[in-house]
């Protein structure tokens, strides 16, 4: 295996595009090294992004935030302004693995690993986040939900890598929240995950919402019916019931070692209700 450590995005792209073998991007490495260890990956080369300064920064952009592909979960959690704007995205990213894993793991890596149970992805999808892709033909911005196409598979083309995740500007009285269900209190992969992002008007009525679910389908689901259950309401009990029902209806999970179909369908609704209440409170609505 070759270890490559470019210092510019251009170098990285050219190395990635020019390599003839199995060449992987190494951001935090907390998924890639596990795959290598478990014989699920045996790359010919890895390209470490962490020596590219621009990819290690959290930068304001167009009223929102640009988070470099090599920024760790811990660094996001320590960034007060980012946490204030996007508490749900940060809390979701901070749920990936242990404190130790937080020191390395990245949102972009979590996205490209393309696990349906990735914690940060439902939060990014609910946030309307965009992935900035660098490739041989230049740069393009793509909604994050279009990146994973199935377990372990992405829409990235040969030579492309994600250089940053962009989070949009927040209107007033907006907030997001992410909850996941795991058997223990830490260290597990989400059995179900749910993110809610919403905006309230001055009266506390929901004017915009996005709701997404993790680990209930081959990719993270954006659930418009669930968002519609909230929009135009004060996120009261009937709205929450409708939200839960919409999420349970949208969930199309499988039975596996982490949970059953029935369990995931039911808990998708439970988590949606609880996440919406947290987001409502964060946005300044009823506690």
């Amino acid at each position: 295996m070759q270890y490559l450590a470019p210092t510019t995005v251009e170098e990285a792209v050219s190395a990635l595009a020019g390599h003839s073998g199995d060449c992987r991007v190494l951001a935090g490495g907390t998924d890639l090294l596990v795959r290598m260890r478990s014989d699920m990956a045996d790359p010919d080369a890895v390209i470490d992004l962490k020596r590219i300064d621009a990819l290690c920064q959290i930068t304001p952009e167009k009223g929102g935030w640009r988070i470099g592909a090599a920024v760790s979960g811990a660094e996001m959690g320590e960034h007060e302004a980012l946490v204030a704007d996007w508490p749900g995205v940060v809390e979701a990213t901070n749920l990936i693995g242990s404190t130790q894993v937080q020191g390395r793991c990245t949102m972009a890596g979590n996205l490209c690993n393309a696990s349906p149970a990735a914690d940060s992805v439902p939060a990014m999808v609910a946030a309307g986040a965009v992935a900035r892709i660098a490739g041989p033909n230049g740069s393009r911005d793509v909604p994050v939900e279009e990146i994973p196409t199935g377990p372990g598979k992405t829409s990235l083309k040969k030579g492309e890598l994600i250089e940053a995740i962009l989070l949009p500007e927040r209107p007033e009285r907006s907030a997001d929240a992410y909850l996941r269900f795991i058997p223990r209190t830490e260290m597990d992969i989400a059995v179900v995950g749910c993110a809610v992002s919403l905006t309230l008007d001055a009266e506390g009525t929901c004017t915009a919402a996005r709701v997404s679910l993790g680990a209930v389908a081959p990719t993270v689901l954006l659930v418009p019916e669930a968002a519609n259950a909230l929009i135009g309401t004060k996120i009261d009990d009937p709205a929450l019931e409708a939200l839960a029902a919409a999420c349970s209806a949208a969930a199309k999970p499988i039975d596996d070692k982490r949970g059953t179909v029935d369990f995931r369908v039911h808990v998708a609704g439970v988590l949606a209700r609880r996440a919406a209440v947290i987001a409502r409170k964060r946005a300044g609505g009823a506690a």
Partner: protein
Amino acid sequence: MSKIHVTTSVNGDPTEFLCEADETLLDALRDRLGMTGAKEGCGTGDCGACSITVDGRLVCSCLMLGAEAEGHEIGTIEGMADGDQLHPLQRKFIEHAALQCGICTPGLLVAAKSLLERNPDPSEEEARYWLAGNLCRCTGYDKIIRAVMDAAQEMREAS
């Protein structure tokens, strides 16, 4: 297969080593540098026995390539005591009988030190969540948490 030359510092000592491209930092520390204080309990970031710090940040050395250490400052359990002066956490672990077999102890100490550097006055719950990535099978964590809380108090009083 050509090896990679890595220049780094380990516990403040300038250090160089050669490693394979796919070799973890844990293997490099243990097999190249003879620093066997960090342990491999799982190799997949699930047990924390290999905990070290990189530029002061807590990480699993099994989830890092040795090559990634280039230019960074590595901190391991071997650097925690100052000569014969144990770190308060090390002393409290002994006083509270916070270890039985001792295999998880280096990782727990490195992780707990990192906690107290960021949060000198953690609640019991904060300590438990911070240390959730450090598995211990012997103690049930009770005496470990007591040792960490006691060390935190002593360090606060001393500062």
